[in-house]
């Protein structure tokens, strides 16, 4: 089974949860001995782990025919791609993309991020997909998130191979219902054209069926998992006088930071010895600082700013409780990461991971009373903390990407069988 996957991010250079999920899933799938994955991303950095799959950088694929000397190409692409591969892919150019600005090799310069001209970048990615679809040999196409749907659809039209799209989020989650019509159109077309749609939770599946008008039979749920942390024991918890309750993530409307502040205020009305931390940054940060001041709890409420890499796990491990009051979270990997380092989690019922977690406290995102109650119980009742810590860690360690990989594989097999 050869799969051609289109993604946008891949570790170690990631901007959000999409990269983590892409890595985990492909790694889990690669455990199937006959699974060969080619993963396309706009701009690789060269330090990606390629031990279990092949990564192609869209920025190294020629889309406009340029005559170049082998030696010149070899020196230009040094370390990124072999010159032979370049010339072989060049044969896949069947359309005229001279309208797109390209460099001397006929390649497009991708940012690989989420720039302002994102929609243009998505279109350019589509051009790269056409070249790959003509040259590569594969059985199925798999597109991760809306940025890559157009590429997947184009590849499907060229190759005639079935397309599976993977919905990691929809614009309904990101915008609290205030949908951007351009993005919706791209998402909708991808879903309409897909042979099968994989969603990261039943919650997302409902959105796809109800808001994007997809038939039930075409949409499946494959829950995300979490990569085991190799150096899990290196994260320790310093004994402290005060308990620490942490919110960690982008401080945006979607994540419900204001409910965390309100719950904190309720807890602090009644108890001492608890501190609250809001880690991360985002467009709602200043508003939150204002709110904290207004509630008069600024002496017990701290902002850390953006955390990266190891700092994230360190922060989680140092906390006595992690809270994710997301208003709408397609999956939400961070509670699983918190539980990995033994930190009890409180999650909103409106998050996809609530569907698979038993040893986490679930409340409605708006129910600040329940949230405050749960925080109070975790910091005050040792048995509560101990149970959530031990059973939660055990639970998370049993949520494996290889199982998710098997489910995806079953969907591949079904889609291909239906084609024949």
């Amino acid at each position, binding site marked *: 089974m050869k799969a051609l996957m289109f993604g946008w991010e891949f570790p170690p250079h990631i901007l959000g949860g999409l990269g983590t999920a892409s890595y985990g899933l492909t790694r889990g799938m690669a455990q199937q001995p006959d699974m060969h994955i080619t993963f396309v991303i706009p701009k690789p950095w060269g330090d990606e782990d390629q031990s279990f799959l092949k990564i192609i950088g869209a920025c190294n694929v020629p889309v406009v025919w340029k005559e170049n000397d082998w030696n010149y190409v070899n020196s230009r692409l040094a370390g990124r791609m072999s010159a032979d591969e370049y010339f072989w892919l060049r044969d896949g150019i069947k359309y005229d993309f001279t309208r797109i600005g390209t460099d001397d090799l006929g390649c497009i310069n991708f940012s690989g991020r989420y720039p302002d001209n994102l929609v243009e970048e998505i279109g350019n990615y589509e051009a790269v997909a056409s070249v790959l679809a003509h040259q590569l040999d594969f059985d199925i196409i798999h597109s991760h998130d809306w940025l890559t749907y157009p590429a997947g659809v184009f590849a499907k039209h060229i190759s005639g191979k079935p397309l599976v799209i993977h919905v990691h989020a929809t614009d309904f989650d990101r915008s609290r219902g205030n949908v951007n019509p351009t993005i919706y159109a791209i998402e909708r077309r991808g879903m309409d054209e897909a042979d099968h749609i994989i969603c990261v939770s039943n919650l997302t599946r409902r959105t796809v069926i109800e808001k994007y008008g997809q038939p039930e039979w075409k949409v499946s749920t494959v829950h995300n998992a979490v990569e085991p942390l190799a150096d899990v024991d290196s994260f320790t918890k310093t004994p402290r006088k005060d308990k620490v309750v942490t919110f960690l993530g982008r401080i945006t409307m979607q994540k419900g930071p204001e409910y965390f502040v309100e719950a904190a205020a*309720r807890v602090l*009305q*009644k108890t001492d010895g608890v501190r609250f931390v809001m880690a991360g940054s985002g467009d709602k940060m200043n508003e939150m600082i204002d709110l904290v001041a207004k509630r008069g709890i600024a002496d017990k409420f701290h902002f850390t700013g953006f955390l990266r890499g190891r700092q994230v796990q360190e922060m989680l491990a140092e906390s006595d409780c992690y809270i994710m009051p997301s208003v709408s979270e397609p999956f939400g990997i961070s509670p699983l990461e918190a539980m990995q380092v033994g930190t009890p989690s409180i999650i909103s019922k409106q998050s996809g991971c609530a569907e698979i977690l*038993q*040893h986490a*406290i*679930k409340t409605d995102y708006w129910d600040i*009373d*329940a949230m*405050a*109650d*749960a925080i*109070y*119980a975790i910091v*005050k*009742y*040792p*048995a*509560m903390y*101990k*149970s*959530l810590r*031990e*059973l939660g860690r055990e639970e998370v360690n049993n949520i494996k990407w290889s199982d998710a990989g098997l489910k995806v594989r079953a969907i591949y097999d079904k889609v291909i069988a239906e084609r024949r």
Partner: protein
Amino acid sequence: MRNLCFVFQLHAPYRLKRYRFFEIGQDHYYYDDFQTEDRIQQLAEQSYLPANKTILEMIKSSNGKFRCAYAISGIVLELLEQYAPEVIDSFKELADTKAVEFLATPFAYSLAAAYDQHEFERQLRLQAEKVKTLFGVETKAVWNTELMYSDEIADTVAKMGYKTILTEGARHILGWKSPNYVYNSSSSNKLKVLMRNPKLSDDIAFRFSDYSWKDYPLDAEKYVRWLSEIPEEEPIVNIWMGYEALGIRQHPTTGIFDFIKAIPYFAMERGMNFVTPSEATKKIAAADSIVAPYPISWSGEAKDLSAYNGNDLQQEALGKLFAVSERVNLCQSVLLKRDWQILQSDDHFLYMNHIDAGWTNYESAYEAFINYMNVLADFLQLVDEQYPTTIENEELNELLKTINNLEKENAELEAELKKAKRAKKA
């Protein structure tokens, strides 16, 4: 002759209301009366009333040959008095037939027997009083909470003067022995032990309407045939279940009531006899004795207390609850003592079970724990106001002893005074 012993058990708790931590110290009423009533009404209408009617008919039509026993928690008696008095009336009718025995059971269906023998005794006495006032009968046999039994419990029960205790025919205790005999308790040869036949009881209570069960459908003739196939020398079969098996666990449309009603007919045809637990232990000699160093119960696969105290949450809650036992009993406040009893119902701890939380009204074990602990925190504060935790339990015990001694002394002195007066008159 083969003896059949049917026992039905009834319990429902006072459900706790949603109690947030910021109510601690503010609100001292912990109960969700609506939910409690809703549950008891459901039990009364769908199970207790039609079942009582069926049993009464069975007793009458067999001229009192059909006999059975009830283990009803004090809380259920209270709740029925309040919300469904017609059920109490129908139990009175059953009591009047003299074919029914009422068993002693801890008032709140508490786990006290495993934590606090004094409290266990108190609860048995309290429930026995309730049974006496309502039905005018004495309790002679003990059905401990969830059929809990151990040598220590047997000891307490024997000292209270009970002659019979009921427990589960747990395989790890019985070994190769059969539950179909009467046994002696190893700690007291005055106390006889009856053991539930798990298979034949659960065939009715749990499997009766299970389509995937190989013996489905079960009818009375077949069931009685099974009873007759038990080796001749085994004198008694104990068929005990939660009363809600009739009407709720097994819906009326499954034919459960007709099934039960037909049993005496087929059983008597085969010369079988019906007994209540106390009759059984009077009539049948003990075959051997039972040793149970650790408490057993009828719950779960393990047949121990792990469903109620197996995880950290349950242990913390139970530990905190029973730690104030002495203090609470020193208190004068009737309300405080009553709250303490109600909070002991084992249901609260079952709801904290991660795997099987029974008829829970919580979404998770954690939610059950949070709510219970908030209530308990308020309760403990009230106890603390009366007897601060700064006073050690030992000191309290001394105090308690002094009070008890004083009372005794008082009584003695009074008696002496009376004697003296009488002597003077003479």
